[in-house]
């Protein structure tokens, strides 16, 4: 039995601005297996974020199909895609995007209550996850503007995990954080992956990419190569070297 969770075939995305057509993704084929920690890398404008949004059902491809666990989602309506995202996906963004007008707990519960009507259960799970990512009780009723960048991003990760999604999509989650906060966030993401959830992450950062077991390199909308790194081990000195060599080969 195949453990493929997400599969894209002949995936293309074209933006048009009047008569100018911009082909951002060109006939991509990707397969994501359950438990994968996949990192998408590439230079600016290579189509990394577009690919992430297309795979997550946030944007529809121009051509090609995406299927999730054997079901084609690329022809879903917007509402069907919304339901798909709330049940199966979690999102972590570079700009964090917590709702400034809501407390930490409400920011997480807003996502949880989309799937479950059991408020107490959702609140309990949110608190449990917050504890897991190292946020104490006092932070529950704080507003995002009262948190540090790292704390806010950990809240965003909890929000992504509240519905126990099969895949977590992360778009440069450490891009706006200092190095200490970035490491903390990556540790949480690694733990999440270790617990069995798939992660697809876009990054520019080699230290971040090192956490993945699979690297896809995009250039001009095409995956030009990929690297399999195996399970992450903190003290593995070769891992960084192999990755650097791969990236140098890609012209990084």
């Amino acid at each position, binding site marked *: 039995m195949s453990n493929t969770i997400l599969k894209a075939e002949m995936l293309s995305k074209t933006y048009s601005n009047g008569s100018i057509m911009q082909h951002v993704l060109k006939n991509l084929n990707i397969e994501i297996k359950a438990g994968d920690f996949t990192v998408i890398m590439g230079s600016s404008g290579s189509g990394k974020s577009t690919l992430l949004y297309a795979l997550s059902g*946030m*944007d529809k491809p121009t051509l090609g199909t995406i299927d999730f666990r054997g079901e084609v989602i690329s022809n879903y309506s917007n*509402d069907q895609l919304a339901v798909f995202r*709330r049940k199966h996906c979690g*999102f972590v963004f570079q700009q964090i*995007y917590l709702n400034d007008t809501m407390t930490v*707990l409400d920011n997480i519960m*807003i996502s949880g209550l*989309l799937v479950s009507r059991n408020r107490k259960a959702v609140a309990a799970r949110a608190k449990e996850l917050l504890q897991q990512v190292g946020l104490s009780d006092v932070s529950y009723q704080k507003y995002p503007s009262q948190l540090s960048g790292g704390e806010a991003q950990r809240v965003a990760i909890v929000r992504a995990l509240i519905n126990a999604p099969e895949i977590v999509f992360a778009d440069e989650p450490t891009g706006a954080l200092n190095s200490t906060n970035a490491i903390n966030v990556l540790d949480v993401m690694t733990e999440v992956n270790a617990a069995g959830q798939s992660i697809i992450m876009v990054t520019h950062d080699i230290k971040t990419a090192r956490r993945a077991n699979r690297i896809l390199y995009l250039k001009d909308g095409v995956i030009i190569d990929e690297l399999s790194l195996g399970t992450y081990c903190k003290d593995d000195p070769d891992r960084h070297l192999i990755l650097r060599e791969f990236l140098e080969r890609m012209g990084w």
Partner: protein
Amino acid sequence: MSVLMIATNNIKKAKVATATLIILIAIATIFLYVGISVLANIDRFIDQKNAKINGAHQIFITDGVHDQEIQEIYQSIPSYSYSEREEGMMSISSSFQNINTGEEANSIPAVFLNLDTERKISQVKIIDPVENMPKNGVIAPYVLKAANGYQTGDTLKMTVDEVSTELEIAGFYEDLMFASPSNVSMYKLYVGDQQLQEFLAQPQFGSKCSYFAVMTTDINNTEAFESEYVKETKNRLPEGTGSYVSICYGTTKTGVSIFINIIMAVLVSFSIIILAIAAIVIKFSTTTHIENNIKNIGTLEAMGYTTRQILNSILVEYLLMTAVGFMVGLGAALLISPVITNVVSSSIGLRWATGLYPQAVLVSFGVIMLAVLGISYVSAAKIKKITPLTALRSGIETHHFGKNRIPLEATRFNLNTTMGFKALLFNKRQNLITGLIIMLLSLVTVFALASYYNFSVDKTAMIKLIGLETAEVEVNAVDDEKTIFAEIAAMPEVEDTIRLVSFDGVIKFKDKESSAMTRVTEDYSRLKVDTCVKGRMPVYDNEIAITSIVLGKLGAQMGDTVSIDYNGINCEFLVVGVIQQFNALGKATAITTAGMKKLLPSYREQNLMVYLAEGQDTEKFITKINNQYGSEKIKTNSYFESAEMMLDSFEASIKIIVTGCLGIIAVIIVFVLFLVIRVRILRERTRLGVSKALGFTANQLIGQILISQMPVIIGAAVVGAIAGYFATNPLLALMLSANGILNCDFYVNPGLVLFTAIGISLLGLATVLIVAGKIRKISPCQMFEEGVD
């Protein structure tokens, strides 16, 4: 980059807000310009019209018995200049029906004059004349064309009692003195010599009368001339001398322009409300503009632009929009000038031509420009506090540290309802302003609908406001009134009768005096219309109730003693009450029959108000009593119907104004909510985008916006409509206070309140739904990356 370039660039970027503001400014311009141009020119226009035809300063219509004495009286008044007298026919019980327009017969007295008579005063200049004057041709007042849609060639059927004849409209004439039935309540009609002689030969149509047109040396003092004339005729002529009509230029001019002045004042007030709404729009737009362009502002500052220059660019932006909006509004005002011409013409009965009035253009432009630039300066002034660095770091973000009033963990509402309520609380300032606008518009809607209802559908309250009784028939007995009135009262068709007489009196207090229509009856508690607004109506022979206008003119108040001069007898009366009425320009008093007998011991109550039983036909009853007693014994008229007819001439204007106001209110509600929701979506695009990414459907997000706006829209519409229910009469009283009206009793149908609340709520919610629907078409990543513009 120059300041002008930055301004035009900003305009290009904010197309919808620009269009909204231009439309609001254009609407405000239409109302303000039309209001100011009419208010500023109506007085001069009437004077010029009158000068053109050498219009009379004073007109007296009498039965011709005392012509010599009457001429002596007015010629003895110092400001007398010259006069003309001609013979005509007075028809008191006439009713008219335009067969071509299919209207119902209107009971209104008429005076017929000879078209072929040479006259210097009030010359007849025929409008839309027929090619060949037919024998039964009649020249009618222009107001019939403007307000009632009469055309040359139409057939006017005149009925007096059961006799009728048909006249063909051969053209129209303009004359201020008989311009509008609003305060004259009779037609002046010109017929050829042959037709007039035929009428005079048939007494059933009316009786011969003398028509005096008098010119004075001072057109601005005709009221004093009339007072002097009334006083002298009371002193020198026996009581009951047949004087049909006495009107002067000053009183008529004020009366004719009252209604249009009120309408124009309403338009100017409405333009101020729209400007206030435009100010809110500017505040929203400026704040959004600064928030959205904070980095551009930082870049410009880093390049060396001063905050003053950036502020100026915003002011230039609004200056350009105001200029365009004003030009559009002015163009639209000129485009709709036929409608305005019709409203004014049908109200004043003279051919008004709406044109371009430079002073009105300058004043309205000045008012609008000052308002727009003032509010945009205040809204944009916070730019001064922004340094380049804070701007580049998006430094004016506001942080929220308030109490979480609806924690998701504890609330019992479902998620979308809770999110809607959270948004409602978070946007409370914006919601408060939106609510205020909707509440105000809801109130104005109830006011407009109630005005329309009381002016056009059920005129009872308006007739009460005018100060008239609700009697269907007025009977004036020449002789033997006791027997005749007792017989009428006993008739099966009659529900009640009250003897009520009015005469023109002169009231004095210290060294001041004022003319006033004085009402006399035995027992005021029997009247159906209570005009007393303070104190009480007179009960004893030494008591009087007076309108606030007369009291103001005399400098008297309740508790003072005033006097009335009548036939050389002077009697003092104690002011026991304040009354109000629109009729006779609010100049009225009321005394008892006993009080009148002190002034005139031989006084007889020769006038009877007849209230018919439910379902009785007024015309049939009038015919019955005319047949029974004959025109030599009694004179009758359809009292209530005449009053209703007087209001009919305003109906078209009211309809246009109310329809226009309601249309504009609807447009404003749509625009304001469009802007509010659009700005909100723009501001919250990231949150909405993230929400979609998290799995909220477009319908859920639209539902949240709808839920957050619902309490504001419905609440404000309901509160505004209820406020309109209670405020309509006080507001009307305030508007009419210059006419001595202190209390109004317009019927505000609760159905109208409900209709307004439901109508405005539905319109508002539909707008929110449509505008918020824009979320639907956008994919989540697009929303938080690019916005929805």
